[in-house]
């Protein structure tokens, strides 16, 4: 059969050209719908991608134990005010809970770091090498602490990227000496950049010293048998249930700290991975919700097309009669209007994709949100709008095809 879709396309394009303003307004519904869907998926996808990056940068299966609140003279002090955790706790967690891969103790402080005539206020973290295992954090230059430095409170330091670039610019800091609280420290390593944490902190703005050095030379704590630490970072074995590990740690520390049943913990176990995963799930739900709302506007756009096509069919009854009289079959008329509706919808969809991509970029540029455009959602949006064209164009087209030439020609 010769009556191809190409011919229908040219008839449709002609009809749309003839009613330019109406065609544009009809398309607008689909344009807005598709643009909204694309932008929502891009923005939602971007938020999820960012969360996933944060999970990756945090290290997987991570738990953190921080001191809890204690009661001093009847006043409840906030979490972290007391030092209730010890290195022995960390060691016990590693040895007694099989699912724990590492339990790295950590003590934090702040200090001004001086090099030559520049200085920089930063975090001083006292750690052992297992901390870097927990965080899955690698050296960019130099080496980690050796055993001698740990036992003899060696005056050595490993810099984070931010501190290094503040003090040394682009130069390699390894081998240089900086002063922390007046004490000279030799720089033995430089960490890779880790970027922002999930709370938006710069994780690279940090100097690592051996925990023993920190305790004995910098943090001003009494020497003694009980080695207090600020927090313990724990990495559970791959594939283990972090919630189960969390419960085991709680149980173990309650025993070690001799906390009676019914009494409040003097520590808190935070399951960081779980928190981020919850956030991710929430953002997924949110973006699906947004996409669903945007889809409603697609539906409304489709109904707009049906509305205009019905008007168009009625208005062009005589044209339909004429076409039938000169030899068009019902099928031809049907195809003509179907193709017209589909052209409207697909064209609107294509414009909507452009607009959606533009909006996404603008959001990324102005609000600084990360976006994730994926080809699949674009193809889906265009395909879906064509389907809307067929679906909502079918009824008006069928109505047109059923007309009788004599009555259609006489229609006033």
């Amino acid at each position, binding site marked *: *059969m*010769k*009556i191809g879709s190409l*011919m229908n396309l*040219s*008839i449709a394009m*002609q009809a749309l050209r*003839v009613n330019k303003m109406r065609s544009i307004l009809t398309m607008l519904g689909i344009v807005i719908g598709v643009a909204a869907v694309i932008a929502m998926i891009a923005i939602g996808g971007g938020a999820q991608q960012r969360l996933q990056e944060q999970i990756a940068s945090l290290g997987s299966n991570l738990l953190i134990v921080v001191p809890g609140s204690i009661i001093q003279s009847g006043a409840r002090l906030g979490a972290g005010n007391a030092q209730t955790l010890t290195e022995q706790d960390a060691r016990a967690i590693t040895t007694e809970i099989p699912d724990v891969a590492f339990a790295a103790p950590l003590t934090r402080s702040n200090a001004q770091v001086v090099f030559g005539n520049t200085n920089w206020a930063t975090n001083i973290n006292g750690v052992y090498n297992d901390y870097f295992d927990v965080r899955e954090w690698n050296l960019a230059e130099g080496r980690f602490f050796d055993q001698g430095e740990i036992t003899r409170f060696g005056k050595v330091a490993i810099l984070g990227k931010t501190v290094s670039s503040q003090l040394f610019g682009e130069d390699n800091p390894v081998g240089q000496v900086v002063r922390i609280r007046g004490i000279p420290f030799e720089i033995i390593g430089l960490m890779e950049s880790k970027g922002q944490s999930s709370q938006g902190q710069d994780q690279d703005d940090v100097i690592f010293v051996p925990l023993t050095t920190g305790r004995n030379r910098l943090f001003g704590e009494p020497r003694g048998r009980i080695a207090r630490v600020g927090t313990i970072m724990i990495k559970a074995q791959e594939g283990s249930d972090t919630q189960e590990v969390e419960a085991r740690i709680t149980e173990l520390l309650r025993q070690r700290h001799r906390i009676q049943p019914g009494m409040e913990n003097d520590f808190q176990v935070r399951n960081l991975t779980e928190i981020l995963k919850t956030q991710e799930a929430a953002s997924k739900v949110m973006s699906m919700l947004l996409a669903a709302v945007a889809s409603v506007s697609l539906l409304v756009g489709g109904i707009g097309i049906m509305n205009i096509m019905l008007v168009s069919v009625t208005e062009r009854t*005589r*044209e339909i*009669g*004429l*076409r*039938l*009289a*000169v*030899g*068009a*079959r*019902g*099928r*031809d008329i049907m195809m003509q209007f179907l193709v017209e509706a589909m052209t409207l919808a697909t064209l609107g969809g294509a414009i909507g994709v452009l607009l959606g991509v533009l909006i996404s970029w603008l959001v990324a540029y102005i609000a600084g949100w990360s976006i994730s455009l994926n080809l699949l959602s674009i193809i889906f949006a265009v395909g879906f709008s064509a389907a809307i064209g067929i679906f909502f164009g079918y009824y008006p087209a069928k109505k047109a095809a059923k007309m009788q*030439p*004599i009555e259609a*020609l006489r229609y006033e």
Partner: protein
Amino acid sequence: MALISAQNLVKSYGQGDLEVRALNGVSLDIEQGDFVAIIGASGSGKSTFMNMIGCLDQPTSGVYELAGQQVSELSVDALADVRNRRIGFVFQQFNLLARTSALENVAMPLLYAREGPLSNLTKHEQLAHAKHRLEQVGLGDRLSHTPAELSGGQQQRVAIARALVNDPALILADEPTGALDSKMTIDIMHLLRRLNHEGMTVIVVTHEPEVAAYANRVVTFKDGQIIDIHINDHPVGKSEMAQAPL
């Protein structure tokens, strides 16, 4: 053999006591190259008859043959094909596509050509063919004008060019001058006369005796039947045609 052969055509609506016969046993033969006017008051059945011979409608009973083809039993789609190949329609209200050029209007029926020499034309060839037909009706200089930019007479000429574009066996004009003033009426009837002179079979449905005067034969309808067939000895415009072709 006659181009059109209608035998005892009946078209009735309703059933039993309520039955109304729009056509009540009409028989008529029209030869190739004839110029026939069909007249009658409204409700006389002349429009129904025209719909029959135009293959727009099927008779309730009777036999209708167009160019030797039994039409009265064809399917709806086959009827559409017959209309496309054999018949050129001219309507009272011109029925041109608005905001569409004269050339596109004339070429439109070619889109639906499924068989015959005109069915495989490229878009370019279709437009060339349409241009030729527009030149034939004297509108070679108005190709890109839209209907709104043309006078009533010119619009009807475009419609006639459209009727010609499929190289039909006959032109079927339903009140072609009903919407035109007397000067334009003369203009259009002369054009139809000339086309007939060039060999086209023309059938005009009208209620104006002045228009019917152009035809070789005048068939009068009343109450669904033919009551008179009058042969014009001197149809208007025929003698001029021989001397001065337009």
